[in-house]
């Protein structure tokens, strides 16, 4: 009899757990003590940027309070630093109708989310923002647009720049008076050339083994390669007719430049070196003299603690006849299609897109250069009390010369396959020509849906 009871209890418990958990997810919207509807916003765990996003949410909540809206935003940080893992979690939360109903994601994942019908149509919000004159029309669209509908709202533009350690260059110049290295140029119309950067990187490389110092860190990824190709007269992966033109001289040149520094000069850390310590951390630790990276690192870099000075320069070009372009990455804010609080999601997003909220992030150099015209100055001025105060102009100027990565539903697979081959090429397993041809071929296969 005891067993029978036990069995009954166990079954009842199981059922109760199942029903209970299903019910609490199915119940009405979550509210706080004051009766405000809680809208949860999902963000990726990035220690470098989180202070900015949290400040943005806090400010948005203040605005909601002022306006008397019965909505509050709560943040939910997904404990991962990789966008792929983050997307997986976001996706499973959307399917399970739990977690954040709004959020932020890298634009690379937007096409897939749109295709999978996971995102709410935000066209009306976009129209409202544009009609208020706050957001210029042209910042919308791109990956977030499908059939005239808009599924994402960008808050800022983030592009690539060249960070350099002034002190390391000064030290080299003091030791080699006849062979001085000029600082990389911060003038986007007259940037440094590939050859200049390569020779500087070579000179700044010293040491062996674990204590080796590198001249330059540069990601030879497809998303970054487009800007170098444009900077040497080529196209950004696709030409005007939409044909894939990776297999062209511009890309061959760029990748020759990469591999020359990596293998011949040894001035760029290989994958083995960066697997033990991330390039960014190495740069901030004075282990790498120059770093091509996005302005999403700005919050960290503005607050570096090392005993050296950092400068910011434009992306290099092939030769004097070209001006510098840089790749733009815009994060998008989205709302889940199956949210049970669609109205509240809209209100929350609108508050997040208010000048005050965007300023809160911009003042911490997070979120890139605001697309709201009335916030750009705040971003620029925020540099004034940091160690990089002289370089705000270089950063702002770069935002005017951006190109976009042609993200699509197949781009991630293409990118993954290319990154897998990348190791082979970097370790000398294939020629640059073969590697670039492989990229071209993979992209074409992706376009045809043959991956």
């Amino acid at each position, binding site marked *: 009899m005891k067993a029978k009871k036990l069995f009954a209890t166990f079954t009842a418990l199981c059922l109760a757990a199942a029903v209970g958990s299903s019910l609490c997810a199915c119940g009405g919207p979550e509210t706080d003590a004051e009766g405000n509807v809680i809208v949860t916003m999902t963000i990726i765990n990035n220690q470098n940027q989180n202070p900015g996003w949290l400040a943005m949410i806090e400010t948005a909540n203040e605005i909601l309070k002022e306006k008397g809206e019965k909505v509050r935003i709560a943040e939910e940080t997904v404990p991962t630093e990789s966008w792929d893992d983050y997307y997986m979690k976001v996706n499973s939360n959307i399917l399970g109708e*739990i977690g954040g109903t709004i959020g932020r994601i890298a634009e690379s994942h937007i096409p897939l989310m749109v295709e999978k019908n996971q995102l709410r149509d935000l066209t009306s919000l976009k129209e409202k923002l544009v009609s208020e004159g706050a957001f210029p029309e042209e910042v919308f669209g791109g990956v977030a647009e499908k059939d005239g509908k808009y599924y994402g709202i960008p808050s800022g533009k983030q592009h690539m720049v060249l960070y350099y350690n002034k002190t390391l260059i000064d030290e080299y110049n003091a030791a080699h008076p006849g062979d001085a290295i000029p600082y990389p140029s911060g003038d986007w119309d007259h940037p440094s050339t590939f050859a200049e950067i390569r020779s500087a990187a070579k000179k700044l490389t010293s040491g062996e083994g674990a204590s080796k110092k590198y001249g330059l860190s540069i990601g030879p990824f497809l998303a970054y390669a487009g800007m170098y190709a444009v900077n040497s007269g080529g196209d950004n992966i696709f030409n005007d007719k939409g044909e894939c033109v990776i297999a062209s001289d511009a890309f061959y040149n760029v990748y020759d430049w990469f591999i020359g520094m990596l293998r011949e000069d040894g001035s760029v850390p290989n994958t083995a070196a960066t697997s033990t310590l991330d390039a960014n951390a190495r740069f901030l630790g004075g282990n790498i003299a120059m770093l091509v990276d996005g302005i999403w690192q700005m919050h960290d870099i503005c607050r570096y603690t090392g005993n050296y000075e950092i400068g910011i320069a434009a992306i290099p070009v092939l030769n004097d006849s070209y001006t510098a372009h840089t790749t733009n990455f815009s994060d998008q804010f989205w709302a889940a299609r199956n949210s049970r609080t669609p109205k509240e999601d809209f209100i929350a997003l609108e508050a997040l897109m208010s000048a005050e909220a965007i300023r809160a992030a911009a003042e911490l150099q997070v979120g890139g250069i605001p697309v709201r015209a009335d916030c750009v100055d705040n971003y620029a001025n925020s540099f004034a009390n940091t160690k990089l105060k002289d370089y705000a102009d270089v950063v702002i100027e770069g935002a005017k010369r951006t190109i976009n990565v042609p993200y699509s539903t197949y781009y991630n697979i293409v990118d993954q396959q290319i990154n897998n081959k990348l190791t082979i090429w970097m370790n000398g397993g294939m020629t640059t020509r073969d590697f670039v041809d492989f990229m071209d071929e993979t992209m074409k296969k992706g376009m045809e849906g043959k991956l």
Partner: protein
Amino acid sequence: MKRLKLKRMTKRQIVSVILITIVVMIAAIFCLFPFYWMILNSLKDPDLINQGDTSLFTFHLTWDSYKAVFSYKNGLLWRAYLNSLIIAVTSTIGTLFTSSLAAFAFAKIRFKGSKPIYGLFIATLMIPGQVTMLPLFMIFAKLHWTNTFLPLIIPGVMINTYGVFMLRSFIVTIPDGLLEAADVDGCSWFRKYFRIVLPLIKPALITLGLFSFIGSWNSYMTHLIYLSDESLTTIPLLIAGLKEQAMTGVVWGRMMAATTLSVVPIALIYLSCKKYFVQGIATTGMK
């Protein structure tokens, strides 16, 4: 004459024992070295590791790495321990209960359809988890069970064909006479199950329990798929997360301290119940 031969044999035996000892010793060292290296580096000065020190017997030992693990994200490790324990214990107890019930029914209760249903159960033993993984994900998402422990506990509790198979093979060997004797006393089936069968198959239950506990403690893919909240993190997720810290690179000392802490409870359980493990695995091989 006979004595001499015996003596020669012994000499040869001594040589072969020495040779075998050497070979087996090398194998044992190969098996144990990663554990040694893990523990040594968890105690090594993290600065030494960063400098690429790989000497096999340095003993500048500190607790720094352990302190770093315990303070990682405000003591997330304890949380992970607790979560892993909750999942492992509930799923183990649950699976023991349901599979022993079913095994008893298949072995001793004559009911219509017993044989075909059992046949079906056994037929699905070979189905790889990857096949059912996708629909299960959908089911649990629709039930709003993602980001809870339920998807990690319930399937294991509700279906364990291997457990049923194993326990049944033990229960079948219980003589019918024992149960019939209980029949005379007017024992109900539940009482028979609880009073007679369960005590008799205790060793098998312990073995199955150990396997399911360890399986649950060590499983990774399902945790990766279903859990996203930091407060729900488990030991494997915590360890994988330590590796992912892009900004700092892998802090190997801290990582080794975390892996040591995750391996130790299992190793202790195992060492204290070695007998049941060996029994359980050995019988699998005989079937």
